[in-house]
C-alpha cells in the first residue's frame, strides 16, 4: 500500500486547504479514500454522529502535480484511511507560503499521513515542516460501509438561496429551538420554520427555482404548490452551513418527506453531498 502526492501550484494548494477546512468543520473524524483518479472525504452515517453522512469528492488531477498510489491489490486499487480532519486542516494551515507540499502514507511507529511542507523563507535556506497525522488503515471488510450513498428519490428538489443568508437565519432560530422544519415545493418556495409553545417563526424564500427532475416519477404528478417537509436537528444543519466558507457554484436541496434531507453542492471541481436524517 503506497501513496505519495505533491502540490506545487499555490492556487491548488489554497483550494485544497479550503476543502480540508470545510471537512474539518463538517466532521470530527472522516475517512479519506484514495483512488488513482479521485480523492474522497467520507463521513458514514453512524448513530453516534446523529446519522449525518457526508460524501466529498475531488479529482486528483485538479490539485496534484504528482500522484502515485498503489492500493491493496490490483483489483482493489484503493486505500481507506480514518483520520482526525482537524489535524489535516491544521497541517495545511502552515502551508500558506509553501513552495511545495507533499502528502505521503508513511509508517513511523504507527501509520501516518505525512504532510511535509517546504516553506519559502527570506534567506536562501529551506525550512521544512513535517506533520505526521496518525491514521487508521481501514480493512477491506469495512469498505462496504463507506460507499457513495445513493441519492434518495426525493419528493422535492430545490435550489438553495445564498448560504450565508441561510446561515444567519438558522443561527438565530437556533437560539429558540432545537428542531427546524425545512419545507419546499416545486414552485421555487423554501421555508425554514421553527415551532415552540410560545412562538412560531418562518422564513420564506421565494423563486429559488427547481432543478429539472431526472426521472419521470410520481412527484411529477404533484401539485407544485404542495409542500414537502422534513424535521431536522438544527445543530446539524447549522454545522453544515457553517462549513461553507465560499458560496458554491451549485447548491441543491433534495427533500424526502419525513425521512432525509440531502444537500448537493458543487464548488468549482469539488462536489459535496451532505445528508441529514429526519427527526422522528
Amino acid at each position, binding site marked *: 500500500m503506497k501513496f505519495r502526492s505533491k502540490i506545487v501550484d499555490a492556487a491548488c494548494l489554497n483550494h485544497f486547504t479550503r476543502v480540508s477546512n470545510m471537512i474539518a468543520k463538517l466532521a470530527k473524524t472522516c475517512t479519506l479514500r484514495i483512488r488513482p483518479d479521485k480523492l474522497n472525504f467520507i463521513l458514514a452515517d453512524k448513530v453516534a454522529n446523529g446519522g449525518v453522512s457526508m460524501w466529498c469528492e475531488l479529482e486528483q488531477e485538479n490539485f496534484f502535480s504528482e500522484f502515485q498510489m498503489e492500493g491493496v491489490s490490483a483489483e482493489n486499487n484503493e486505500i481507506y484511511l480514518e483520520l482526525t480532519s482537524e489535524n489535516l486542516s491544521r497541517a495545511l494551515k*502552515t502551508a500558506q507560503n509553501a513552495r511545495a507540499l507533499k502528502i505521503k502514507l508513511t*509508517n513511523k511507529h504507527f501509520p501516518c499521513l505525512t504532510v511535509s511542507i517546504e516553506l519559502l523563507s527570506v534567506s536562501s535556506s529551506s*525550512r521544512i*515542516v*513535517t*506533520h505526521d497525522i496518525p491514521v487508521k*488503515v481501514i*480493512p477491506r471488510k469495512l469498505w462496504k460501509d463507506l460507499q457513495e450513498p445513493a441519492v434518495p428519490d426525493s419528493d422535492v428538489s430545490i435550489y438553495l438561496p445564498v448560504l450565508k443568508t441561510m446561515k444567519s437565519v438558522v443561527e438565530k432560530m437556533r437560539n429558540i429551538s432545537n428542531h427546524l422544519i425545512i419545507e419546499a415545493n416545486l414552485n421555487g418556495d423554501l421555508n425554514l420554520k421553527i415551532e415552540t409553545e410560545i412562538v412560531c417563526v418562518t422564513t420564506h424564500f421565494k423563486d429559488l427555482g427547481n432543478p429539472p427532475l431526472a426521472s419521470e416519477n410520481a412527484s411529477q404528478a404533484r401539485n407544485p404548490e404542495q409542500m414537502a417537509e422534513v424535521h431536522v436537528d438544527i445543530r446539524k444543519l447549522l454545522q453544515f452551513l457553517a462549513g461553507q466558507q465560499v458560496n458554491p457554484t451549485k447548491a441543491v436541496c433534495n427533500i424526502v418527506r419525513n425521512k432525509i434531507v440531502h444537500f448537493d453542492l458543487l464548488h468549482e471541481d469539488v462536489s459535496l453531498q451532505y445528508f441529514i436524517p429526519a427527526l422522528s
Partner: protein
Amino acid sequence: MKCLVTGGNVKVLGKAVHSLSRIGDELYLEPLEDGLSLRTVNSSRSAYACFLFAPLFFQQYQAATPGQDPLRCKILMKSFLSVFRSLTMLEKTVEKCCISLNSRSSRLVVQLHCKYGVRKTHNLSFQDCESLQAVFDPALCPHVLRAPARVLGEAVLPFPPALAEVTLGIGRGHRVILRSYQEEEADSTVKAMVTEMSIGEEDFQQLQAQEGVAITFCLKEFRGLLSFAEPANLSLSIHFHAPGRPAIFAVEDSLLNGHFVLATLSEPYPHSQDLRSPELCRPAPQLQAHSTPHLDDFANDDIDSYMIAMETTVGNEGSRALPSISLSPGLQPPCSPGPHSEEEDEAEPSTVPGTPPPKKFRSLFFGSILAPAYSPQGPSPVLAEDSEGEG
C-alpha cells in the same frame, strides 16, 4: 527607588511584564546599581525569568534614596500587569511612566503620564522579600544556538497552541529540529499529530552543538520570551546541556538583557531515545549531500521508503493487526542508548527498565552548577537559595 521611563521604552517595559506574566504569579522588583531587575519564578519552580534594564534605559534612575539601602519588593503579577495591560494604549497615549518605591508609604507607585495631561496613578501594595536569584551560568553550557528571534518565532508557529512541550535538537546536516513532544500513554489509542520543523544551519548566527543533542522544554514560556524579543528584533541565544539540565534562553542589547531559565525533561523515553538519533535526522537525509537544498531534492525521495507493509484483506482485524506491522529496516529504532542514559540510570536506580516513567521536569535549575551525581533526585522541593548576604 525612583525611575522614569519615557517614549517607546514604556512599551518595551510593558512587553517584558507581559512575557514575565506567562511564567509566575509574583513579580520580584529589585533596584540594583546596574539597573532595575524584574524577576519571576513559576509555582513549580521549573521556570525562572528575569529582565535587567540598564540605568541608561531610563530617563532618570535612582536605585536607592541616598544614604539608604535599596529596597526590594514582591508584588502580585496580576496587579502589576494590569498597569501595562493594553500595549496599544501604552504606545498611543502614555508619554512617561514613573515607578517609585519608598519605605514610608509602603506602596509601589506607578504613574502613567498620558496625553492631554491625564495622569494615572497606581498604588500597589507590596511585600518585602529576599532577593530571588537562580544560579545559572550560560558560559558553562556546552551547546549554544543563536538566531534572530523572528527565525525562532517562525519555527514555533506551526505548533498548536495547546502543545505543552517541544523538543529541540540538532539533526543530520546540522539542521536544527523542533518537534512536538508527545507523552507516551498506556492507552495510546488516540495518537496526536506530531509536527516537526527543520531549519537550515544558515539561518542561525551561531550553532555550537553536535548532531544528536536534544532537549525538551515547555513551549509556553519560550513563546513568552519570543513575544518580547520578536518585535524588538533581538537575537535570542539558547544555552543548554544534557537533557534534564536547565536550558538558558537569553536576549540582550545595550539597554537591557533578559534570561529565561527553563527546566528540561530529564527522562528520555524509549522512543525519544531514537528521537535523538535517527528520527531527528530523517527529515533531511537527502539534504546532507547538498549545501543548498533545492526543489528537486524535496521531490527526489524514494517512494519505497514510505511503503506501508500492511495487509487489509477481508477478515483482518484492521487496527488490531497493527502490532504485527513489520517496520522497514530503515525505520527501526536503534538500540544504542544515548550518551546520557548511564548517568540517568545512576541517578534513578528505582526506574524499572521498560516502564515508561512519569513525565517530570526533574532538573531544578537552581542546582545547575552541581555535578550530575549530586543533582537532586526526583521532584525535590529545593527552592531559591537564600542570598541575603548578596550585595
